[in-house]
């Protein structure tokens, strides 16, 4: 069993939080992990990505080879497409639909959506809106994690526990908001898949 996951976004959008939850859940499930953080110059508003590899066998490369990613999770639609060369033939794309526009030549949203929907296993959700409804727009990334949950080799319990561990310092309220965000993400993905 091996799962290759690419996390994509813009600096400060919380992809390393998703990575940290996956790390913790993997370790507690006694599986091997390699997680590499790829970022450029001081990552001020630039594109960032993280490669997460989970396996029951030894993992060699810290980087996922081209065409070998099972899932790409992105907190922004254009950043999702930047890593397409890594996607497996039947790999999954999961992304928030809200653009992060800090450049003036950002492409037309409709074109981006069209491009994403061309892939049969794609989940495009307004995660930000869902997070807002819960009352914590910062939890957008956790909604997306929830949407990916059924594709991960990690149990529901281990993911929930990892969320608890990660937000422990921030208190009960934040933990619960994030758990709720995770549940909502799961729900939506299952509706979309059915």
């Amino acid at each position, binding site marked *: 069993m091996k799962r290759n996951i690419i996390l994509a976004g*813009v*600096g400060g959008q919380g992809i390393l939080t998703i990575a940290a939850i996956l*790390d*913790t859940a993997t*370790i507690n499930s006694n599986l*091997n*992990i*390699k*997680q*590499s*953080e*790829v*970022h*450029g*110059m*001081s*990552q*001020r*508003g*630039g*594109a960032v990505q993280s490669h997460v590899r989970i396996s029951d066998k*030894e*993992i*060699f*490369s*810290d*980087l*996922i*080879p*081209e*065409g070998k990613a099972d899932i790409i999770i992105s907190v922004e639609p*254009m*950043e999702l*497409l*930047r890593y*397409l*060369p*890594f*996607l497996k*033939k039947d790999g999954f794309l999961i992304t928030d639909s809200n653009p992060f526009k*800090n*450049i003036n*030549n*950002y*492409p*037309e949203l409709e*074109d*981006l959506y069209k*491009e994403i929907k061309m892939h049969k296993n794609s989940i495009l959700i307004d995660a930000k809106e869902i997070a807002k409804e819960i009352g914590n727009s910062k939890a957008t990334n956790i909604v997306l994690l929830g949407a990916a949950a059924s594709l991960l080799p990690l149990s529901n319990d281990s993911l929930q526990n990892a969320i608890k561990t990660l937000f422990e310092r921030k208190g009960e309220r934040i933990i619960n908001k994030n758990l709720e965000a995770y549940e909502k993400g799961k729900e939506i993905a299952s509706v979309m898949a059915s």
Partner: protein
Amino acid sequence: MKKLLLGNEALAQGAIDTGISGVYAYPGTPSTEITEYIQNSKIAQELNIHSKWSVNEKTAMEAALGMSYAGKRVLTVMKHVGLNVAADVFMNMAVSGINGGLVVVVADDPSMHSSQNEQDSRNYGKFAMIPIFEPTNQQEAYDITTYAFYLSEQLALPIMIRMVTRLSHSRAAINIGKRNTQNTIKLSKNPHQFQLIPMHARNRYQHLVGIQSDIRENSENSYFNKFIEGPNTSMGIIAAGIAFNYLMENFENDSCPYPILKISQYPLPKRQVKKLFDKCKKILVLEDGAPFIEELIADYFDENKKVIGRLTGHLNRVGELNPDNIAEALGFERTFANKIPKIVTPRPPELCVGCAHRDLFDAINQLKTENTKQQVFGDIGCYALGSLPPYESINTLIDMGASITMAKGASDAGIHPSIAIIGDSTFTHSGMTGLLDAVIENTPITVIISDNSAVAMTGAQDSAASGRLINICKGIGVDKDHLKVITPLHKKLDENIDVIRNEINYKGVSIVISQRPCVQLSKEKKDQLKKLKQVAIN
């Protein structure tokens, strides 16, 4: 015990567990997390391990040598270009040798993710004639560090560990061993060891050359260098450090058919290389960075081209290795891969919203319309992004401190206005000495110190300049009438332009300190800074 750690953190944990008494470093991507891990480690605090940042890499390495002189184990950490700054002491301490174990960690940046060049530090290690280690993975980063201290004391030599960005910034679970106690103070038995006057230095250098065979023998029998047999001798592979992982990634179930020599310790184990060479029809060399091994073993005049790699074009000459370019070198067909759709546009990094550098660049750019000959010499820090659109305010970017000295040279050549823009931390790192050069000749330059009170680019570490800039400039000899402080804010734009215009019109050394903390600093830090500021004024 298992712990999930970055390559950098695994290395730091290894150093703590070997019983270091201190780490000396200047922040620089990709090396920064090593020192930060020790700074944040509870155990390190309890053990009173020194971990404050140094002003630059040279002062860091010299202080480390001082701690080693006292008999204690010590780590010194920098990025590849930082080693250029410390090269003076680095070369000389290989000659003097050390007393307590001393390990130099240098993190290289193939592909230049956050650097001006991709120089390969193994060249420096070889130049200094000391052992070099190159971990393959996070576990080895830990294990090698603990062993390197042992070897350092055994050979009485500094040891280099070379990291690369990918390993530094990638996490895995590692096994942590037992913790050693620190050394007690104990001076060298040889009273002349650290006196490199020619008569002693000659002896020491003779000694260094004399023990090269021991160093090679150690590498020849190293636990970290491995010869892995394989049935298909049409090709043999030398894989160094992280390249070994990318190689193995290409074969299911560890089933590489070719014999492999995995290198994690240098000098190159000659006998093992020879064994591979004799056995195989050709040799593929995989190494991240420069073609260091390849150059050593390739026979340029051999028409048969037995050794292949980055020099022969079988692999990319520049940039990082990865599983894909190695797959190509192995002769594998590229499997299915989607292309990046054309509509995806680049997203370069930019200054944070509300960053003080932005307001400073606005002022400088407005002056550009008045002085078409204006040249702005830049330096290393977040403000280097001022060379990109929308600002494009900076003309040069070479190395730490070069803004001031290049502005001086350009001014000597007749360019006016000649403006240097340098950060507060970069100023104390390497700008101060250049400023003295300018002060001595009262060269017509304007130095703008963009003081955000942090080493912001690497994550807002403490800056040695905080609260001291005015006094430092006065102490170096800057005329106080041409030492101005401005606050870079949009509402003060016109006022600030006036100040800078006046100073660049002055035909001598002038300094404008543009002072506003980095917006990424925590509230506590900002409060601390306010107190420091008052001390400076009183």
